[in-house]
């Protein structure tokens, strides 16, 4: 590792209740393209934020050319030679291409900007990438692909030693990706160290030299790309060092004997979002949705709940088609969704535990029939007891609870509205280990009470532990369905990698 331009040693970053990054080592050599991989929440973006100074690190060291650095913000890191290009281009769309390239570096004559020289410099910077566009037009009038290349050109023009590309290909088409790869290889040849974050594994094999995998904020390992088979890579990403959980549920083990409600998803799909998927669910059954990030797990949940509108297919409840034009319709039909991004889409942080719990029920009843305060209190107290929500009282703002307890409040919200189908998208993301077990236990109990559950998760041992059936997703498509004894981590990984 004598050649390492950027080294991270024992980096740690802790947020209240979560260890986002723990004891992570990372080495980037000059003249290599290094993939940084991991599922959502694995710590990729936290590591990048620690390197670039968005977050101060809580432990460890970051060394650039052997010198420890302490960037306070991305501007600092950029000044030191670490440039980052994000999926969402961080340039100014209303300014011209030339200005975006030359901001704060415009050539001046007698204290005033010389536009002629500035534009020529901008053109020269783009030439190094083989990009020939009108630098006077606003950046926003170009495609995202070009904007991204402009961002890279700016980074290169700033004499970057390290270039971090955070999901740069997510919104590019095939040809644009090839252009990007060509430029990445050229920059590698010039001695730049490139960190490439992506969730497209074929791209990892197409362009990278080495791979570092993170999981749950910890380092899994660094591998030479040529020597790592794709199935091993997926194994590393999804993880399986936990022993296979023996408490495996089988269909016949369910304890639910009530009326069987059937939910049938038939060819539900949306162009460019999800290939048509069919899936049957019934009361008292847990169906797991497995797959890598971007495989269509979240998209399927959103289509069923009406957050995104499907353009093909239907969902039937007991044989009757269900209107799924908006979450409102879905809630009326008895569907519930605990979204992946709890803070953004789930809780209303400023409202109290009680108010959050009655939200869905109130929505279903309509605002003209308010739930009496005493009844709300009853619901809230019952749920705090039943789910073991750790809160001093029902009036505490939800935002002040820990992640696990927030998740329980969202579960409680759906439980009081007595749903038929509950969709859980990554229910255990960002929750500490103790609460994790609680949530899994709750999911099983809910099922026994007669709910149909659809649970999307990137944690295989979790899915294996509770699912009666598993739908495996890959490339926005359902590729396999496993039942009963077939549900093992090996089988799921094989279905994903096939």
């Amino acid at each position, binding site marked *: 590792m004598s050649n390492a331009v950027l080294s991270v040693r024992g980096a740690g970053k802790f947020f209240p209740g979560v260890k986002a990054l723990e004891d992570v080592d990372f080495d980037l050599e000059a003249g290599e393209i290094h993939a940084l991989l991991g599922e959502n929440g694995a710590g990729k973006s936290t590591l990048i934020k620690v390197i670039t100074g968005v977050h101060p690190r809580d432990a460890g060291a970051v060394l650039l050319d052997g010198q420890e650095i302490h960037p306070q913000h991305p501007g600092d890191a950029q000044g030191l030679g670490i440039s980052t290009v994000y999926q969402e281009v961080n340039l100014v769309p209303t300014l011209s291409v030339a200005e975006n390239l030359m*901001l704060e570096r415009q050539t001046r004559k007698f204290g005033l900007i010389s536009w002629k020289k500035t534009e020529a410099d901008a053109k020269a910077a783009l030439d190094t990438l083989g990009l020939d566009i009108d630098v006077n037009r606003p950046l*926003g009038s170009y495609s995202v692909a070009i904007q991204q290349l402009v961002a890279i050109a700016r980074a290169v023009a700033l004499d970057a030693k390290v270039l971090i590309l955070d999901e740069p290909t997510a919104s590019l088409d095939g040809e644009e990706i090839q252009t990007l790869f060509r430029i990445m290889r050229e920059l590698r040849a010039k001695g730049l160290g490139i960190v490439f974050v992506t969730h497209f594994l074929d791209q990892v094999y197409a362009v990278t030299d080495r791979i570092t995998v993170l999981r749950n904020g910890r380092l899994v390992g660094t591998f030479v790309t040529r020597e790592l088979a794709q199935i091993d890579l997926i194994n590393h990403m999804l993880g399986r060092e936990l022993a296979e959980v023996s408490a495996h549920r089988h269909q016949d083990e369910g304890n639910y004997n009530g009326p069987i409600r059937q939910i049938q998803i038939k060819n539900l799909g949306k162009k460019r979002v999800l290939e048509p998927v069919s899936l049957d669910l019934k009361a008292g059954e847990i169906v797991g949705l497995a797959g890598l990030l971007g495989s269509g797990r979240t998209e399927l949940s959103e289509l069923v709940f009406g957050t995104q509108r499907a353009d093909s297919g239907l969902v039937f409840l007991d044989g009757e088609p269900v209107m799924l034009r908006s979450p409102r319709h879905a809630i009326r039909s008895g569907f519930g969704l605990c979204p992946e991004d709890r803070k953004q889409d789930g809780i209303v942080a400023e409202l109290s535990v009680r108010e959050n719990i009655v939200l869905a029920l109130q929505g279903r009843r309509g605002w003209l029939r308010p739930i009496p305060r005493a009844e709300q209190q009853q619901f809230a107290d019952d749920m705090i007891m039943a789910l073991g929500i750790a809160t001093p009282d029902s009036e505490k703002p939800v935002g002040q609870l820990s992640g696990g307890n927030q998740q329980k409040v969202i579960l409680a919200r759906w439980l009081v509205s007595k749903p038929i189908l509950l969709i859980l998208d990554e229910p255990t993301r960002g929750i500490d280990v103790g609460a994790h077990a609680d949530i899994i236990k709750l999911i099983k109990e809910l099922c026994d009470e007669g709910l149909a559950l659809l649970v999307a998760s990137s944690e295989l041992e979790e899915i294996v532990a509770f699912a009666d059936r598993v739908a495996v997703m890959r490339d926005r498509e359902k590729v396999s369905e496993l039942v009963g004894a077939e549900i093992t981590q090996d089988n799921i990984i094989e279905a994903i990698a096939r």
Partner: protein
Amino acid sequence: MKINERFYPILATLAVLVLLYGYGIFEHRAFSDTYVLGALLTDNAFLIITAVGMTFVILSGGIDLSVGSMIAFIGVLMAELVSGFGMHPVLAALISLIVGSAFGAFMGVIIAKFDIQPFIITLAGMFFLRGICFLINLDSVPIDHPFVAAFSGFKVPLPGRGWLTASALLMLATVIGGVVIAHYTRFGRNVYAIGGDRHSAELLGIPVDSTIIRVYTLSGFFSALSGVVFAFYTASAYPLAAVGVELDAIAAVVIGGTLLTGGMGFVMGTFFGGIIMGVIQTLIAFDGSLNSWWTKIMIGALLFGFIVLQRLITRSFSGMRAGAT
């Protein structure tokens, strides 16, 4: 060659100005006289000077509601310094400019350092300055000094019957100064960057806080200058002067083609915008049969049109964040 998208709004502004002026010349022969032009430049001088400062504020994505009160406050302060303390008006004007800039900087520091909505801080500034006016003086007082008389008497003749007054000349100098700052200094370009996308500007290494403080300082300076011009022009001070001028200035900026959300626009556009508002007023005065409130109706209609036009242009941009549009 395709015309750059950035010029669409200012071209629309120019078209409106030409149409209105052309209509005036077509309807009223006297409209073509340079006398009308000279009067337009003089009567709208203080508005346009303020609006130049407002252009920077709006380009940065902010707003400054304190400028109207600032004009009145500076007038009252000038009257007190000249009549009360017997100071020379030029010295009084210098002090006024420093006080105005300092107050702008003060608001800028609060806005930048505490990350507070500029709307609410400058609203507080608006009430505060208006209140201070009454603390100094309750009535309209004249500013009596030979220099003030000389200032309002100074005229450069134009071809025809018109002339440029000192106010108009100062205003034109301000516009040129504004253009240079906006387009030929790094500070000016940084203002555009912050208004276009503040988060990105920060990541691009732009000193966001200090730029914002300087923007409000500049607006304080220009509104104080406007107050000085207003005081010299009217040779009096009145605590209730220039009520609502902040809104006229905002209207001039928007009609001039500057994006109300920031990041796009031209100081020259603001000049045209201010002149358009003056032309509408003059047209209605020439007509004689229309109530003067028609000015407001016309300006309102123009604002509707320009805001929709801006929206159409920025909506075609990719990578424009929801917050930035």
